[in-house]
């Protein structure tokens, strides 16, 4: 500790402190709050201010976390089975939707008359709440994998389709003019101008659709299966294991985070020219 009589080093010390303060990254603040909240929670349960059964404390969650990784829940269904089941369903439904919706959207968007003819259908189909289709899909296809993947695909399809159509229509006329005056044919303009020009918005749609996939997966895993993270948290409820439900939610957050990051990474690789990824979201 520098003494106050010694003015110069003290000022240097303050300066250093200021400088270090400036370099604290934002996430450190966030982490601090999280740790404080977890500690408060633990403390409150310890002193019986809140019910340990309805609010299992972090220490309990940590033990459950470990137990789930080791033994799984319910007995015999390992955690990686849950992870794999959920991930597969999402990837299947999501990629089917993307593979169908992107080419179709590009085509519809580039054909104005067709676009006008199908616009009301798309608007309505998009408004239909995917989860309200659950009972219908069960009546049609039964309670099976197909129903689950179908609903995920349905929810994502319309979002991606709309974004692809808007993307094509939103490509600046300037670029088309420029390409025309450079002698590009219609086909060349489509492949080299419309397609790359619409990718940023298509990616924005893909991002929203991923969120939709996560909303739907939980609902469809709540019925007729014991495999998958949605099933895990619902099953835990049936056994009054709030701790397992909470750890299940942490698992879901982890998958969601990883998939969103993967998509952002893909976008940076595939669209190196886009400055601000957020810009496109508007």
């Amino acid at each position, binding site marked *: 500790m520098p003494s106050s009589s010694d003015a110069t080093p003290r000022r240097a010390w303050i300066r250093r402190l200021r400088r270090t303060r400036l370099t604290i990254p934002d*996430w450190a*603040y966030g982490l601090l709050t999280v740790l404080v*909240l977890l500690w408060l929670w633990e403390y409150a349960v310890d002193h019986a201010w809140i019910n340990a059964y*309805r609010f299992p404390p972090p220490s309990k969650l940590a033990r459950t976390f470990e137990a789930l990784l080791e033994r799984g829940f319910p007995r015999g269904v390992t955690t990686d089975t849950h992870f794999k089941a959920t991930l597969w369903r999402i990837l299947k439904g999501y990629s089917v939707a993307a593979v169908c919706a992107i080419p179709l959207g590009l085509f519809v968007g580039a054909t104005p*008359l067709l676009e006008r003819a199908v616009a009301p*259908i798309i608007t*309505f189909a998009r408004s*239909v709440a995917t989860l309200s289709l659950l009972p219908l899909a069960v009546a049609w296809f039964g309670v099976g994998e197909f129903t689950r993947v179908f609903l995920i695909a349905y929810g994502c399809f319309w979002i991606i389709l709309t974004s692809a159509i808007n993307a094509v229509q939103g490509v600046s006329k300037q670029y088309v003019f420029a390409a025309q005056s450079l002698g590009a044919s219609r086909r060349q303009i489509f492949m080299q101008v419309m397609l790359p020009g619409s990718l940023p918005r298509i990616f924005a749609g893909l991002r929203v659709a991923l969120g939709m996939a996560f*909303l739907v997966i939980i609902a469809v895993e709540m019925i007729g299966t014991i495999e998958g993270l949605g099933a895990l948290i619902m099953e835990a409820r049936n056994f009054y294991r709030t701790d397992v439900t909470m750890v299940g939610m942490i698992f879901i957050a982890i998958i969601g985070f990883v998939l969103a990051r993967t998509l952002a990474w893909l976008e940076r690789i595939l669209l190196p020219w886009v400055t601000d990824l957020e810009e496109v979201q508007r």
Partner: protein
Amino acid sequence: MKQQRAFQRNLLVSWSGVIVVLVLWQLANTLRLVNPSVFPGPLQILDTALNRFPAADVLDHARISVQRVLFGFLIGGGLGMVTGILAGWYRLFGKLIWGPIEILRPVPPLAWIPIALMWFGLGEQSKVFIISLGAFFPVVTNTYKGMISVDPMLFRAAQSIGLRGPRLLAKIAVPAALPDIAVGIRVGWSLSFGSLVAAEVLAANRGLGYMIMYGREVGEVEVIVYGILLIGLLNLITDYLIFNLLFRRQLRWYFG
């Protein structure tokens, strides 16, 4: 004259797709290409709509559903907006609070259902909680993003004509962030709506979600389809009201 004809032609094109779909769907039923009790046709559904349920009952279910969404949305969206604005204005608060928000954000609202049932039981509170979660996260993230990306030049300009403190917040920061807030509200509304259906399908004795479950229990697919169409229509109308009437008018400078 010429314009009117062009308008009529536009209208025809716009609806041609819908008409083609409806006709094909009905034909598939009439010609028994599909089983009408599993895949009911438009006429069958129209019949259900007109004769099976009294309009007053349907309106009542719709009213209950709208009330639920609105209530949950106002709580979640309101909290999200206030949190987002404060987090954007008081940067230290923002940095502190962003940790927990970022951790909870990837958890979809429906994953909270077991917890909500545990905390609030099977009643109305659980539903409102789930719905408000649907609105909270999109609104809070978009508001915060809007607040921190306000062009600093705007602040300098406002300060140079003497605006300070809360007036700077109310007159410059919030209006400048409004387009982002609007996006958050729109996404939040659709997520609230989606969560409502799940909440009602899971447990309710009134509301449009309940109508669908009723159809499932009595095994009448046309009732399910009717309920789905009603929910879709309600979503469409409310989204239109929010976006076009509220935002387009208030934010004309942004949306054009």
